[in-house]
């Protein structure tokens, strides 16, 4: 095994890049965890979150990505034709074969002079696309690229995952640092083959290697990615105003943050799992969006995603003075959280296709 010097582990583009615009989408329906416990556990279960966001009958990864992308464009204040890539990360693409990204590109008016592609890596497919966008823009191949993470996650009825598997999307426009509301100073990815979670072809619900989900998967990858990047940059948790970690539940990100030296106050604005659940590829980056919604110029932000299988992408982000001009140009995360319609398990079962008619 070759040992890399800390600084050479970083992923840093030749040209400085940043976030030009961002936008989210969260569906309006909420299923309380207590309601799942009522149906499957006699009302008695340790609840990992308060409630999760559930998509309506006419929503999927394509529709959620479109709205998030429109919000990101409104904030970026660029024309869709300037986007040279539309990349959508998800583990719930509506089609097995036919890209999500082409429909999104058409709906926002970015066709036809653009790259398009769908990405997969469990819950970190969206940040994979952000890293690729950094390379695309950072190499000067393109000025703007859009990376989206969006999921309508499903858990087997009664399974632990059902309490948290949620829906939502977030879109990020990556562009040159000069026109950014936040610069991305560096990123770092940490990946190993770890069998913590998977879904085979044609299977509706995923499987998880229960004892693998915590220590060797989530905690090992998020803390390694975060600590390696911070070491290479010569910074510690104290140098950041905010930190966001992938949120499979409320507890994991709180513990990962503590392991890396972050305080509860630093992760509070981006910790949304308690009220929206885990929208997989969108989880960490909706958290980042919520932080950007309230961030001030010069705030420094640590973002660490996690995808089962397994890997984490870490990002070192600094907010610029442009942020104040763009925060109010589109709906904020809190606007979507406040748009809340509670449903019961039967309604949820119908909406999520859990009732078979034939």
């Amino acid at each position, binding site marked *: 095994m070759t040992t890399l010097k800390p600084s050479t582990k970083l992923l840093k583009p030749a040209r400085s890049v940043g976030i030009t615009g961002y936008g989210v989408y969260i569906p*309006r329906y909420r299923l309380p965890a207590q309601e799942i416990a009522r149906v499957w556990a006699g009302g008695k279960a340790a609840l990992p979150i308060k409630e999760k966001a559930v998509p*309506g*009958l*006419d*929503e*999927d990864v*394509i*529709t959620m990505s*479109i*709205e998030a992308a429109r919000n990101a464009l*409104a904030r970026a204040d660029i024309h869709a034709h300037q986007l040279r890539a539309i990349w959508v990360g998800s583990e719930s693409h*509506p*089609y097995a074969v*036919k890209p999500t990204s082409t*429909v999104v590109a*058409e*709906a*926002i*008016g970015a066709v036809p002079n653009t790259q398009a592609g769908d990405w997969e890596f469990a819950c970190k497919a969206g940040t994979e696309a952000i890293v690729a966008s950094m390379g695309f823009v950072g190499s000067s191949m393109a000025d703007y690229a859009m990376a989206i993470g969006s999921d309508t996650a499903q858990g087997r009825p009664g399974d632990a995952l059902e309490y948290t598997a949620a829906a939502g999307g977030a879109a990020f426009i990556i562009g040159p640092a000069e026109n950014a509301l936040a610069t991305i100073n560096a990123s770092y990815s940490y990946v190993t083959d770890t069998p913590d979670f998977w879904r085979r072809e044609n299977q509706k619900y995923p499987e998880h290697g229960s004892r693998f989900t915590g220590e060797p998967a989530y905690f090992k990858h998020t803390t390694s990615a975060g600590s390696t990047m911070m070491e290479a940059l010569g910074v510690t948790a104290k140098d950041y105003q905010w930190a966001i970690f992938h949120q499979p539940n409320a507890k994991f990100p709180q513990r990962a943050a503590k392991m890396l030296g972050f305080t509860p106050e630093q992760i509070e604005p981006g910790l949304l799992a308690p009220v929206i659940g885990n929208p997989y590829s969108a989880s960490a980056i909706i958290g980042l969006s919520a932080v950007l919604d309230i961030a001030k110029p010069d705030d420094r932000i640590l973002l660490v995603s996690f995808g089962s299988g397994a890997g984490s992408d870490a990002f070192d982000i600094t907010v610029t003075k442009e942020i104040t001009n763009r925060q*109010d*140009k*589109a*709906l*904020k995360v809190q*606007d979507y959280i406040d*748009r809340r*319609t509670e449903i019961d398990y039967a309604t949820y079962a119908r909406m999520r296709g859990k009732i078979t*008619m034939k």
Partner: protein
Amino acid sequence: MEIPRHWRLKQQRYRLVGEVCQHCESKIFPPRDICPECGGEADTLYTFSGNGEVYSYTTVHEGPAGYDDSTPYTVALVKLDEGPTVTAQLTDVDEDSLQIGMPVEMVTRKLKNDGDERGMIVYGYKFRPRMAVA
């Protein structure tokens, strides 16, 4: 199967692309190449803002083929801010909060499966209660 038709209509369906008349500046939706106001030729594309208000509505309890698994749903005549009136489903709305004049905005949603669950998914405009940008 109506794949060619769905493909041809995608711009107007996904993002309300209509036309503007170069003679009298009327905004036209759906696009029809002839201005309904002045009869002039109109083939300049125009993307509508998506904002409008409910002009009238009705709730459908027994939908036609392709729409039958989403009943009940509400169909409305929506008067767009730019002038034209379109017929579309309302979404993310509670029946008891519906009223004439309610401000709505366009969203792109799943309309139906073309045929059964093996067919292509048809996406297009619907309207929901407007979520104001602060």
